[in-house]
């Protein structure tokens, strides 16, 4: 698709504009650093087996930070630094996965809705509105209750509740340009709908969706960890998850604060940096007064 390189260059231009703002610089660098740390984490963790939750060293439980264990140990004697690195890895992977899948899904459904015949369009739009009304955490709960715990129901629930936002953006953009001549003419000449979508609509729809997706990174991190924090016990107690770690660490927070503190610090930094990155990007792309809410009705 020729759309992608164009969209990317638009994006880079946007980022260069955003770069002027110091907040953006700090946030982007921090976000990149944490993402790198997350992706590399499992390979640099000092005690990888403890990080995964397989190994347990009961005699060394709840030790404060020391040279051997830079961030201390948790209730089962596992090295907190390793746990946090694995947890970070999980958070980054899940966030990237959810955002990319939702964005792609939303993009296609939204664009398709704009060019397909009216009944199909109504159904698609209706589905998007419907899923926007369902809160992610409850949907995740329903899925966990039927499919059991683990990462998959969480990801599915997040994707189901997030894609309609991109769908809406794609749809509004696509709708705005579908009436334009340069879109209609090819149709008149008999070119297939799919071609029209690919060549003409998608290039105009991808940039706003991309911007939306990037600005939502922070929200996904927050929502994902909120869900795992609340679900806590329903997930496995030994798997490395920042939300679960904080939840379980709260048990000892008055006496051994580091158990909950360090995962919390990393999670907060991840969330804040992603959020600020996203919001500045969004602000640069969409000056407030021209905000597109009006166009939604």
């Amino acid at each position, binding site marked *: 698709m020729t759309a992608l390189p164009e969209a990317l260059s638009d994006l880079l231009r946007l980022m260069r504009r955003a770069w002027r703002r110091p907040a953006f610089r700090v946030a982007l660098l921090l976000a990149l650093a944490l993402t790198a740390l997350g992706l590399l984490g499992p390979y640099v963790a000092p005690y990888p087996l403890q990080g995964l939750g*397989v*190994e*347990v060293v*009961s*005699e060394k*439980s*709840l030790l404060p930070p020391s040279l051997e264990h830079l961030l201390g140990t948790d*209730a*089962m004697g596992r090295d907190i630094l390793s746990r946090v690195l694995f947890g970070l890895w999980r958070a980054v992977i899940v966030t990237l996965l959810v955002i990319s899948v939702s964005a792609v899904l939303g993009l296609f459904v939204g664009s398709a809705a704009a060019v397909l015949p009216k009944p199909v369009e109504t159904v698609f739009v209706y589905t998007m509105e419907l899923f926007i009304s369902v809160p992610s955490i409850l949907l995740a709960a329903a899925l966990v209750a039927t499919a059991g715990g683990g990462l998959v129901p969480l990801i599915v629930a997040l994707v189901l509740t997030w894609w309609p936002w991109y769908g809406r953006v794609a749809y509004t953009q696509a709708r705005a340009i579908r009436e334009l001549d340069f879109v209609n003419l090819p149709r008149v000449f008999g070119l297939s709908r799919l071609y029209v979508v690919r060549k003409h609509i998608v290039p105009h729809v991808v940039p706003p969706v991309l911007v939306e997706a990037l600005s939502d990174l922070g929200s996904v991190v927050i929502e994902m960890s909120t869900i795992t924090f609340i679900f806590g*016990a329903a997930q*496995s*107690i*030994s798997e490395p998850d920042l939300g679960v770690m904080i939840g379980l660490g*709260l*048990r*000892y927070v*008055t*006496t*051994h604060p580091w158990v909950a503190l360090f995962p919390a610090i990393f999670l907060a930094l991840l969330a804040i940096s992603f959020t600020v990155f996203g919001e500045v990007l969004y602000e640069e792309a969409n000056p407030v007064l021209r905000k597109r809410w009006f166009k939604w009705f």
Partner: protein
Amino acid sequence: MSRRLLPAVVLILVLAVVTGALLILYRQPQQIRVVVYAYRDAITGIDPGAEDDVGVVVLHALYDTLLRYDPRTGEYIPWLAERFERVAEDRWLIAIRKGAVFHDGSPVTAEDVKFSIERSLALYEEGIGLGFVWSCVEEVEVLNTTHLEVVTDGPCELARTASAAYSAFVYSRKVLQLSGAASPTDRKLIEWFNLGNELGSGPYRLRSYKPEREVVLEKFQDWWGWKVVNNPRAPDVVVIRIVEDPGEQERGLRAGEIHIASSVPRAVLRSLREGGFEVRAADTYHNFILMFNVLRWPTNVTEVRRAIALAIPWDSVVPTCLHGYGRVGSGLIPYGFPGYDPELRLGQDLDEAARLLAEVQLPSGTELEIVITSGYEEEECFAQLLAHELAKLGLRLRITSLPWDLVKQRGAEVWSNPEAAPHMMVNDWWPTYITPYDYLSLLECGYITWNWAGYCNEDFDERLWEAYEVDLADLEQALPLYQELQRYVYEELPAINLWDMQHIYVYNPRRVLVPDRALNPLYTYVVFFEYVEVLS
């Protein structure tokens, strides 16, 4: 309004409200004495004749038993019964306390005692409840409104039974008519009780019953015992609050919302003590028994069970998971209980375990499932320790943690669908009354509620009943028989006792006092609120 003024006004308003609130909160005189007791499992039911689980925490406040027993001193305390004596080899005379009344004002009569005893037996016959405690009873004869005689089948230590923790409560026979039940064993009556109804003679009456959240009790002014107990500072209202997470119990305790906590994370005990809380470790007969699914591969193979038992890090379990508040298990019967055998302890031996597994050629990477109760941090800790050790033997352990009522359901599944039931479960057990039979009854064939091993051995059952028959008349004589049964279990290993646990009650001594008399090892997790003193 000017923009500058608005935040200032808001701030002043907020400050005013907060100050006012704090002032008012301080000036509030405590008019009623409230005690909040945090317990970690949802109440399973409050039918005094049918309840066999945690409902007993509530039952001992609503109902009286004829006697109470203190294992620490060995004495029987006359409770609802003023006199309880053996008048012949097989005959006991019971005199009901004068002035004892039920919560509706009607007097406690011998007919009511007869009704209660007979119902316990009848329900047990239908497989409900723990009425087996009355098994030696042949007939109950009412002499007059306050006296009755119990005829037993041969010599029988009836006092032991009358002071049991379960199924020995006295309640009014009016419950039949109040519930609209056709007979004492009519399920309608059980339902009536479990909807939140009661008619007992105990120190507290039931004000509201939400078994998942909290049960609220209020003082019954006309209880016969207030004069005996002589505690003017007893609580007027008792709230038994269900708090499953130990961390939450601790926070509630520190916040002053919970006055007596029964399960706080053990790691914070020292800090609580330093914070001025009283940490009371109480000896109990509460133990944690690991049960193997003997109907499912690979735990149906004795060598495999033995290997797993040898893999358990016996030396570190108590220090790590209980922080020292307990004792390693030896045989199914806990320390201090008649029938305890110290020779049945195991030690960790990974080499022997590996050898056994190799002998039966168990493939490496086999996955085993264990089910534990969520929020029981000692079980969570144990499961993770076991997983670690089993990994060294090439076995994978999947840990499933569920709330207690669901754990029971999965346990019972071994009888209907053993392949779906987990390989191992942790069943925590406490006594009905002082008899070794209690702990061994876990392995009785067909005992669906509690036999989660699926163990069915006719020979074992026969010998167990034999021992119990002797026990009824004379416990001493039955001990050797029980010892044999324990050895048998030790060889076969359908179940193994992990540890005997102490209970840790934490409370704020400036607000509430829990004297020794309020706790009793025979009545597990029961706090006798009539002895609790509320200070502020």
